[in-house]
C-alpha cells in the first residue's frame, strides 16, 4: 500500500527514482506544450522514462537529464505519428515539427501541467486521479490502491480524463478561476487522504502527503499568493495532528482528547509561520482563515487554553465570505465554547433546513446537549448521527459516545 517515494538502497539506481519522479511533470509539461496532445505526450514520456531507467544505470547519466528526456519523448512521439501517417495525412504536419534542441529552456512546466490536469471540464475526482498520475508521478496501480479500486478501473478513468482534455488550452492564463480550481482539487485530494469518505480506514495518508508535496510545488512558483500559502499552512497544521487522531483500533479521537505530545512539531512550526504570513497577504480567502483557526488550535499545549473568542471571530469572518452551512455549524460550536451551549444551540436552529438530516448537525447537537448536562437528549442525537454517517470509524465513535451517555 505505501506509495514509495524513496529509491531502493539495494538497487543500482541510487537516487534515480527520485530524480525521474521530480522531472516527470516538467518533461511531460514541455512535451504537451510542444505537441499539444496530452494523451500521446504522456505515452511518449512513459517510454522515455522507461528508456532512462534502463540505459542510465548502464551508460551513465546524461549531463542534462531533463533535456535528454524531453528529446527522447519527442522523438518517440514523432515516430508514433509517422507510424500513423499513412493512415492519417493530417498528422503529417505535426511530424515535420522540429525536435526541441538539447539545450531546452530551463523552464518548469509543472505548474502549467497542474493547471491542465485541474481543467474545469473534468470532475474533481478525475482531476485528482489525473493530477496524481501526471504531476505526482504515481503509477496507475498506486492510485488504484489508494482509491481501493481495481487497476483496470482506474486506468480507464484516467484515460477517459485524458480524452476529455483533447484540445483543452494548455496556457497558463492569469484567470484566478483556474488557480482556484487547482487549489480546490489539491484541497480535496488532501481531505480524501485525511478523512477517507468511505471504507474501514480513516486515513489514506499517502494522498495527503502527495497533496502537500504538490501544494509546495505550486507555492514554489507562486510564492506571493496568499491563498496558496494559506492552503499549504492549512494542510500542514491539519496533518500535524494525524497520528493523534486515531486510537489503536483505528477509532476516532476528538481534538480535545488528543495526546498533543504526538503532534508533529515541525509541521506546526512551519504551518503557523506560513499562516501568519498568508493572513497578511491579500486577497484574503477561505484557506487563510481556516489556516488561522487551525493555527490557534495547534499552538496551545492544552485544549483548555484554546483561544475560543478569536476562533469565534474568525468563523464569523469565514461565514461572511462563504455562507457555507458547515462553517455555520463550526461557528455554533465556537459560540458554545465562548458563551455556553445554549448560544450554540440557538445558532444551529436555522440549519435544520440547510443541513436537513445531515449527521454532522446531529453530532454537533449531541455535543452541545452533553455540555449542557442533558445526557439523554445528547445520546439521542449521537444515535441519530451514527445512523446517518457512512464512515465506519465515525460511526463507531458516535455509537460509543451515545452509549457512554445512556
Amino acid at each position, binding site marked *: 500500500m505505501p506509495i514509495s517515494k524513496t529509491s531502493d538502497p539495494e538497487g543500482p539506481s541510487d537516487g534515480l527514482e527520485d530524480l525521474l519522479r521530480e522531472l516527470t511533470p516538467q518533461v511531460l509539461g514541455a512535451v504537451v506544450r510542444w505537441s499539444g496532445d496530452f494523451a500521446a505526450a504522456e505515452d511518449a514520456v512513459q517510454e522515455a522514462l522507461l528508456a532512462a531507467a534502463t540505459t542510465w544505470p548502464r551508460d551513465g547519466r546524461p549531463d542534462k537529464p531533463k533535456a535528454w528526456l524531453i528529446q527522447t519523448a519527442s522523438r518517440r512521439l514523432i515516430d508514433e505519428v509517422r507510424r500513423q501517417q499513412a493512415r492519417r495525412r493530417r498528422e503529417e504536419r505535426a511530424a515535420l515539427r522540429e525536435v526541441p534542441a538539447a539545450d531546452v529552456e530551463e523552464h518548469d512546466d509543472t505548474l502549467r501541467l497542474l493547471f491542465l490536469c485541474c481543467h474545469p471540464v473534468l470532475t474533481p475526482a478525475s482531476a485528482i486521479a489525473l493530477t496524481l498520475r501526471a504531476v505526482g508521478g504515481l503509477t496507475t496501480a498506486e492510485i488504484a490502491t489508494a482509491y481501493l479500486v481495481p487497476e483496470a478501473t482506474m486506468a480507464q478513468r484516467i484515460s477517459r480524463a485524458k480524452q476529455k482534455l483533447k484540445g483543452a488550452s494548455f496556457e497558463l492564463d492569469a484567470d484566478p478561476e483556474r488557480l482556484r480550481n487547482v487549489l480546490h482539487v489539491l484541497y480535496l485530494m488532501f481531505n480524501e487522504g485525511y478523512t477517507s469518505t468511505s*471504507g*474501514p480506514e480513516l486515513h489514506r495518508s499517502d494522498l495527503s502527503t502527495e497533496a502537500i508535496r504538490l501544494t509546495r510545488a505550486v507555492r514554489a512558483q507562486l510564492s506571493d499568493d496568499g491563498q496558496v500559502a494559506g492552503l499549504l499552512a492549512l494542510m500542514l497544521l491539519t496533518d500535524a495532528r494525524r497520528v493523534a487522531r486515531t486510537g489503536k*483500533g*483505528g*477509532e476516532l479521537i476528538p481534538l480535545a482528547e488528543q495526546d498533543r505530545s504526538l503532534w508533529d512539531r515541525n509541521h506546526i512550526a512551519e504551518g503557523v509561520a506560513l499562516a501568519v504570513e498568508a493572513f497578511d497577504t491579500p486577497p484574503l480567502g477561505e484557506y487563510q482563515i481556516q489556516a488561522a483557526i487551525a493555527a490557534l488550535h495547534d499552538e496551545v499545549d492544552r485544549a483548555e487554553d484554546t483561544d475560543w473568542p478569536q476562533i469565534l471571530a474568525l468563523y464569523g469572518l469565514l461565514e461572511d465570505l462563504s455562507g457555507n452551512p458547515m462553517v455555520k455549524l463550526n461557528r455554533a460550536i465556537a459560540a458554545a465554547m465562548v458563551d455556553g451551549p445554549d448560544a450554540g444551540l440557538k445558532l444551529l436552529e436555522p440549519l435544520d433546513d440547510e443541513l436537513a438530516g445531515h449527521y454532522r448537525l446531529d453530532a454537533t447537537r449531541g455535543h452541545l446537549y452533553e455540555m449542557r448536562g442533558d445526557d439523554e437528549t445528547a445520546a439521542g442525537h449521537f*444515535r441519530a448521527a*451514527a*445512523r446517518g*454517517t*457512512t464512515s*465506519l470509524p465515525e*460511526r*463507531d465513535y458516535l*455509537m*460509543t459516545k*451515545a*452509549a*457512554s451517555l*445512556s
Partner: protein
Amino acid sequence: MTKFMLLMNMDGGNCETPMLEWDEADMKAHMDHLGQGIEELRQNGELVEVMGLTWPSHAKVVRAASVTAPVLTDGPYAESKEVLAGYTMVDVESEERAYEIAAYQSAAPGPGGVPLEQPIEVRRVMESDADLQDF
C-alpha cells in the same frame, strides 16, 4: 489457498437490543473482539479484504427493465433484519480454517459479554470453471 467470503448480517444473534442501545463497555468489547480477529488475519496473511457496510437505512434496491427508467426503492429485502452488515474475504488453506474464522466472529460478545452467536454465512469464491464442477 482458497478464497471464502464471510457474510455478517445486521441482526440474527441471540440479543434483541439494537446495537445503538448497548452500553459503552459492551460495544467496545464487541468491536475489540472483531478488530483483534481481523488484525490476526492481516498478520498471518489470510485477509483479502474486510468491508463494513453502512446501515440498512442507506440501502436501495434497483430494478431496471429495458423500456423504462430504473426504479429505485427502499426495499423489499429478503427479510428486513437480514440486511448485510459487512463482509470479510479471506484466502485460507482449507474450508475448515474459514469455518474457524467465522466461528470466532460469531462468538463476538454482546451485552453483558454473552457471545452474540450471530450466524456468519460462509461462501466460497468461484475462481475457475473447475469450481462449477462441485455443484
